[in-house]
């Protein structure tokens, strides 16, 4: 059985504790949090999944994008308690063991990052976008990815990488 994960810095000091059970990257997780802990902080601070980034913490940058029950969402604008029972995929969960996800490979090939801070959010968002299957042309893909800002300005290469994976998928 899983052990309950407390906040590492304040073990046994969780106010108004709520015990949640989630599936994160395929594994069952039980964690104890206060109601005001965001899903983002739950992932980073309680489950040590620091791949998901905190950019603005206010819904404006997309760095915190994760896939929750099959949909791309912003983990900074939802509470961990609201996602009790959900299935969550973060950047740590998308590769097949040592085999990188096609988007990870494409990002490397297309040099689609500089500092890399926006990359986990970009990739999770792109996975969600490809799954939605609503954006087809390059213009539509740009519009659909506009919730993910890249402060380094790697946007052109990011869209190149995503288009390549999208097109390869269409030819499957």
């Amino acid at each position, binding site marked *: 059985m899983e052990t309950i994960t407390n906040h590492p810095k304040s073990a046994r000091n969780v*106010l*108004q504790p*709520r015990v949640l059970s989630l599936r994160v990257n395929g594994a069952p997780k039980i964690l104890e949090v*206060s*109601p*005001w802990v*965001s899903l983002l902080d739950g992932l980073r601070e309680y489950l040590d999944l620091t791949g998901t980034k905190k950019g603005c*913490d*206010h*819904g404006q940058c*997309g760095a915190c*994008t994760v896939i929750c029950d099959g*949909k*791309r*969402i*912003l983990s*900074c*604008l*939802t*509470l961990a*308690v*609201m996602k009790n029972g959900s299935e969550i995929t973060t950047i740590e969960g998308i590769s097949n063991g040592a085999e990188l996800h096609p988007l990870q490979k494409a990002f490397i090939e297309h040099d689609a990052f500089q500092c890399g801070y926006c990359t986990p959010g970009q990739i999770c*968002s792109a996975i*969600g*976008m490809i799954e*939605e299957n*609503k*954006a*087809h*042309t390059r*213009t*539509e893909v*740009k*519009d*659909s*990815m*506009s*919730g*993910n800002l890249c402060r380094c300005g790697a946007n052109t290469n990011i869209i190149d990488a995503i288009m390549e994976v999208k097109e390869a998928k269409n030819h499957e």
Partner: protein
Amino acid sequence: MNNFAYEQAENIGKAVEFSSNNSASKYIAGGTNLIDLLKYNIATAEMLVDINHIPEHKAIEEKSDGSLRLGAFVTNADTAYHPQIEARYPLLSKAILAGASAQIRNMATNGGNLLQRTRCYFFYDPATPCNKREPGTGCSAIGGYNRIMAILGTSENCIAVFPSDMCVALAALEAVVNISGTEGDRSLEFADFHRLPGDTPHLDNNLKEGEIITSIDLPEKGFDKNYSYLKLRDRSSYAFALVSVATGLELENNLIKEVRIALGGLAHKPWRVKEAEDFLKDKEPSMENFASAAEMILRGAIGFEHNSFKIELAKRAIVRNCMMALNPESQQPGAQPSL
């Protein structure tokens, strides 16, 4: 963010009960506006009542009178891409997709969209006076930087803009908002839902304390042949509107049989002027006629130091959008964003 208790309501009755037992409680739906405001301590709550687990009002259903009922807890994305919305109310689909980002639309709900708060810079800055945030302290936007503020329906107490895109289309479509509360159920015409600031700028709408939006009804007429939503903003995606226009047209023998023109980004609520719509009835859908209507709609507009440009921008946006509504081909959802 202050510390709060958290409860999940399993039905509307329970939600209303939680809320009426604690006047410092708030409902939480998608959380995309409320959590942001809680983090800035602009909103505070002793308790959040999570309404996402209520099994009712989670669907889009056709009613026997031909209208379509949008559950309050359906997400903005599921609404915009619903086959009935795409086919019958493409104006609504387009307006929703012009707002926020894909991630936010996956979270935001229809009820929450109606209740999102203004994006006035000073409302968001607790270091400055703001009558909406703290009644009686004054308005920092009047006499301050006010580029994004309102030009219609303002008062000396507040010149904030209501920022929703979805609601501009709902105003044009003459939607009806269905509400539950401790005193039972009631409905409000869309035009009566949001308020002008007047001397109560802290009130955005006519929802009473503890009331919950359960659904939104769209009347049968959807203007599915001639429609257009135009959003003008500082970047082509993921920004709030400076001016937006929703147009629905019904043509007969190349004359306008019925027209709806609603504006966003200009006032404390979506803006419509009946006189201008009546003027266009039985007229040709020409640039000249639309320009005359635009003059009527903007009559009485007052610009402030940095936003007077909105008056001319709005007039041109109206004419352009009405002309675009004549060409439905360019208006399919997912069509190239118009700039």
